[in-house]
């Protein structure tokens, strides 16, 4: 029996969450490249093949469409597959099976078939890797009806959200912020704190609202601390779910602060941040004291890693936007 609260990195929390889900339901399978004996390139599945066997933790051939497409067939047979995509930029060979098959089959079959498949995607930058290893492709999937899209920012959320995603009868795109795999944080094993699809206020404030998901949440908390030192009270929201988006806490926050800055590593054009800006403009227009601003990656390919810090929004770029918002 583990202690109720334990400090651990997100990587270990995900491992514990996967283990709990597999122990709870023997129809849960893990599938992916190098996830068996190696434990995955990020070691998220470490030890699970030894514990649950080769038929529950499958080292697949190296083919993303094959992984997703066979997971679709397994779902038709009643299995609940958790597919690991090795890196964000390698998900595109599986795009048709995700968007045309996995996402649409429940609707196409008028509900006779469910697709309880989780696709785990280590995503985002800050790790100094080569091309295709640091992207943030979540908007493609948030745009697709039939998919749910979530991204944890803390070890505790990672532990609980992966189990909630596996328990869902819908396909869930699970974006893991790989730059947050190793910092430790508390995991409360006693209960799930919040439902899967809910936005959470992680720091209260009164002057301006900042919102992000995944690794950017910690950047916002840094920025909020600096702003506090300068006398600006910043509220920080962790989006957690990118589809559906829980707009209630966002609207409430904007009604209080009157200012919103949406932050993400992904490019800004036609992004999750754009959707939040549009919806806030529709629903909280009279509360806004300044335009909703976006702080995002540029609309370029992800750059060479030696200059990635100029691409990725940091606390300074967030604070620059805070200044602009307050000066409006």
């Amino acid at each position: 029996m583990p202690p109720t609260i334990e400090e651990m990195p997100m990587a270990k929390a995900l491992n514990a969450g996967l283990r709990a889900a597999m122990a709870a339901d023997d129809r849960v399978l893990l599938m992916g490249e190098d996830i068996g004996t190696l434990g995955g390139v990020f070691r998220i599945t470490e030890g699970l093949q030894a514990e649950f066997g080769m038929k529950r933790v499958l080292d697949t051939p190296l083919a993303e469409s094959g992984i997703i497409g066979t997971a679709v067939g397994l779902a038709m047979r009643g299995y609940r597959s958790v597919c690991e995509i090795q890196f964000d930029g390698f998900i595109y060979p599986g795009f048709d099976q995700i968007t045309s098959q996995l996402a649409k089959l429940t609707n196409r079959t008028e509900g006779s078939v469910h697709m309880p498949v989780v696709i785990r995607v280590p995503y985002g930058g800050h790790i100094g890797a080569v091309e295709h290893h640091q992207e943030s492709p979540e908007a493609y999937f948030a745009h697709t009806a039939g998919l749910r899209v979530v991204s944890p920012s803390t070890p505790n959320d990672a532990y609980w959200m992966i189990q909630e995603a596996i328990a869902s009868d819908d396909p869930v795109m699970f974006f893991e912020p790989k730059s947050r795999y190793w910092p430790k944080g508390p995991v409360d094993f006693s209960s799930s704190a919040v439902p899967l699809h809910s936005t959470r206020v992680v720091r209260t404030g009164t002057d301006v609202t900042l919102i992000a998901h995944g690794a950017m949440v910690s950047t916002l908390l840094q920025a909020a601390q600096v702003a506090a030192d300068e006398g600006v009270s910043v509220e920080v929201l962790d989006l957690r779910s990118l589809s559906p988006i829980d707009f209630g806490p966002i609207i409430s926050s904007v009604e209080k602060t009157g200012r919103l800055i949406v932050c993400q590593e992904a490019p800004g054009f036609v992004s999750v941040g754009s959707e939040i800006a549009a919806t806030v403009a529709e629903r909280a227009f009279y509360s806004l004291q300044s335009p909703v601003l976006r702080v995002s990656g540029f609309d370029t390919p992800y750059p060479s890693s030696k200059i990635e810090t100029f691409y990725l929004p940091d606390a300074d770029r967030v604070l620059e936007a805070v200044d602009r918002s307050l000066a409006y």
Partner: protein
Amino acid sequence: MAENSPTVQFLSIDGEFAPSEAAEEYLPYLADLSDDDHRQFYRDMAISRRFDEECTNLQRQGQMGLWPPSHGQEAAQVGSARASRPQDILFPTYREHAVGLVRGIDILGIVKVMRGTSLGGWDANDPKNGNFRNYTLVIGSQTLHATGYAMGVAFDGLVGTGDPDVDTAVMVYFGDGSTSQGDVSESFVFAASNQTPQVFFLQNNQWAISVPVSTQSRIPLYLRARGFGIPSVQIDGNDVLASYAATRKHLDEARAGQGPAMIEALTYRIGAHTTSDDPTRYQTPEQLAYWVARDPIKRFEAYLRAQGADDAFFARTTEEANDFAADLRHRTLTLEAPPLSSMFDNVYAEPHPLVAEQHAWLNAYELSLREGI
């Protein structure tokens, strides 16, 4: 076929029983077929052709958005479907009308898909639909679903038990064009790697819309599978007995735990790719005549007549097919548009606030229009 042909063929194009050398190992699989079975094969083929003809007409009359004809491919489809056992699971493309008929789906389900009143057409999980999965329109994508499903069948322990009512196989249909798709190659890889209980049934109808099979492959397509470590065979796809025997053998072996196999059935799409297509732009009259002379139904009729089937049998079958078509026409014309709620239902299995909100908005909007009148 040439004498040294690798192709499994039992019936010559004149309907004479003359097994090719390659057919010899498949002969035992014909042994338990009765005259009634033979006549059933014929009825299946005749009814599915008449069904196909009626659907083409209905499309021409504006009653369907699109129709993909199966004319010419009846022997490949009926023979393979009749070789499957009730517990087997069949994954079609979008042209396996005869397979659906044999497996016992309400054939109107296919019409619903093509008329635009349903996306799926039938409930593949309803036992009365014969484990005939839904049509798939993205070329080749169903091969991976079949392979994953077959992995699940094996995980469930339904392979190699020796109980003929338990052991289960999966058969997936695909076409010559789809063999160029990555998903088909990936499904070969996954099937070979997992030794799935699975038969890949390729209908090589010579055309991917307008592109001939020679553009897809420089080697006979059945040889492709061997490069993946999957045993394969080429059959005369217009010989219903060849289709039956080859599929029986390889499904039996798959159920017994001997892994996947691939069958290439050489056939021809006598009709258009779909009713939106014009094959006169790419197909020569000589090609068409060559294959019309190899018509699978006429060939089997000649065989049955030699076996003693009389005019009365064929007249009865024609009448049965006409009745089937008339009933289908009647039921097609009664198919209405689905309720607007079907757009929002089952987008997700669990509640979703955005979809619920938009559904409520459309209801309110439609109501406001009615109230405005």
